[in-house]
């Protein structure tokens, strides 16, 4: 059954709501961009408009994926992972001895993992990369004969695989969660995914907004001076509120459970952002600018998602388990 079923009122409500919000935000953004005399920081307005454009693209791509079906969405997620891993390894210094290992990581392990996700083999994909991926990377780098900083190098590749491929794939895996009862069906799975993306993006924005308005104490000033405790708490609370209000969109959740999920998603997203900031700090912003100029986006956009997706996935399973029990 491939025809998109838009007869579901909750899906329609969610989509309409988001589109309305985006349209209003775009109108405001354009207005602010044309009237620079409003006393607002033009750089902030520009980044707001850039972010909005990113969301429009995201929505369009999601709509296309929804139209094409579950497998297409998994493939799309795989491509995003692939691109993110590219950026990650590009930023990370590797040695020539890592070359063959990296080749297989890109062209065998990443696709194979997503194939397992596409075939809904949770039993396999949950261990494939953490177990066999690790063993392979260690052994292949050792076999290449270069022992210099061995653990450091293998850990880098491993971290890249975990964050960019393994973690992100849980977002795609949400589409295979079997939501029982009348709330189930393909629409429900897509709504679940959409709910997660919405929460992650919202949490990002709230973090930014709260940090800007009330931010005083950075969590780790050396890593990121703009991510503050106030931003974290503010974003976690606001995201929990939004999730509670939108609980009807996420099938297996009760309102309080949705709020909890929102809270956790915001905290995890924050952790993801901090992690990527730490990596970028270590490498120096300069490298990032020269090598990934133009399309610096992907890893920056999905860092929060990478950390939030697995937790949200397991929360969903947990909530459903409770419901069944």
């Amino acid at each position, binding site marked *: 059954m491939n025809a998109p079923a838009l007869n579901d009122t909750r899906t329609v409500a969610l989509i309409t709501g988001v589109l309305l919000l985006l349209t209003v935000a775009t109108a405001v953004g354009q207005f602010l961009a044309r009237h620079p005399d409003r006393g607002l920081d033009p750089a902030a307005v520009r980044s707001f408009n850039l972010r909005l454009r990113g969301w429009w693209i995201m929505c369009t791509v999601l709509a296309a994926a929804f139209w094409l079906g579950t497998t297409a969405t998994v493939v799309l997620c795989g491509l995003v992972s*692939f691109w993110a891993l*590219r*950026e990650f*390894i*590009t930023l990370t210094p*590797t040695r*020539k001895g890592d*070359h*063959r290992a*990296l*080749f297989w990581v*890109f062209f065998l392990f990443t696709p194979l993992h997503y194939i397992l996700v596409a075939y809904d083999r949770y039993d396999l994909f949950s261990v494939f990369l953490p177990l066999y991926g690790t063993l392979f990377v260690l052994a292949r780098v050792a076999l290449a004969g270069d022992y210099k900083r061995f653990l450091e190098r293998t850990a880098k590749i491993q971290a890249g695989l975990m964050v960019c491929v393994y973690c992100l794939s849980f977002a795609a895996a949400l589409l295979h969660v079997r939501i029982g009862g009348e709330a189930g069906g393909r629409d429900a799975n897509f709504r679940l995914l959409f709910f997660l993306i919405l929460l992650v993006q919202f949490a990002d924005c709230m973090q930014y907004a709260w940090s800007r308005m009330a931010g005083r104490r950075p969590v780790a000033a050396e890593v990121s001076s703009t991510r503050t405790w106030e931003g974290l708490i503010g974003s976690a609370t606001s995201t929990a509120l939004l999730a509670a209000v939108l609980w009807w969109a996420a099938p297996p959740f009760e309102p309080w459970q949705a709020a909890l999920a929102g809270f956790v998603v915001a905290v995890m997203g924050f952790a993801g952002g901090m992690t990527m900031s730490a990596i970028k700090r270590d490498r120096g912003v*300069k490298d990032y600018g*020269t*090598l*990934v*100029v*133009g*399309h610096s986006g992907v890893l920056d956009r999905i860092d929060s998602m990478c950390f939030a997706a697995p937790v949200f996935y397991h929360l969903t399973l947990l909530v459903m388990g409770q419901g069944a029990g």
Partner: protein
Amino acid sequence: MLSPAEPFSRRQGPGTAAPGPSGRTAFCRASGLGLAALARLLSGASVRWIASQPDTCQRVYFANHTSHLDALLIWSALPQSVRELTRPVAAKDYWSRGFVRRWLAEEVFDALLIDRTDIKVSQSPVDLMIREIGTTKSLIVFPEGSRSVSGEMGEFKSGLYYLAKKRPDIELVPVHIDNLNRILPRGEFLPVPLLSCISFGPPMWLEQGEAKADFLVRARRAVLALKE
């Protein structure tokens, strides 16, 4: 696309590069486009023109050499109209071995093959290049001579200087290729699809009375300056 009257009709001696590309078939052209697209996709290359613009005037693009993909990537980074006029200079001992390499070099990329092992005064590579490009074509050269192993840039060989001296009207455009040595390092044949960056710099010329060593150092610095 190509001018009907090739400006050079002099016969080349046996063992020199293949004649001009007027006879390139549509298949070869399509192969070139396909390979260029593939190289761009695999290398995730972003192209920057720094204080410089693509132009169909006669130019010599000189770049650091780190990978087999270098020439292909520079070639693919140029706009179609410029690409048609630009010929990579490559080592004959490597590119004329085997059918596929020879076909790629001669038919697809219209490369100018230089015999590194047998350089004679009567048949110097620079004279050959000047003769081959006539008054319309541009060249892609790698003045280091061979790919560096470490990724560090080596000293420039003097060919670029003599080229500039004999044809002072040609624009010399420095090109810096970043990260490609990690995508396809020397001695590897399978690429790892990381992201790379190609930067074209502002054209330069040989100054009046500039010494060979000074010019070569200046040219090398011009390439290195694009790293930032």
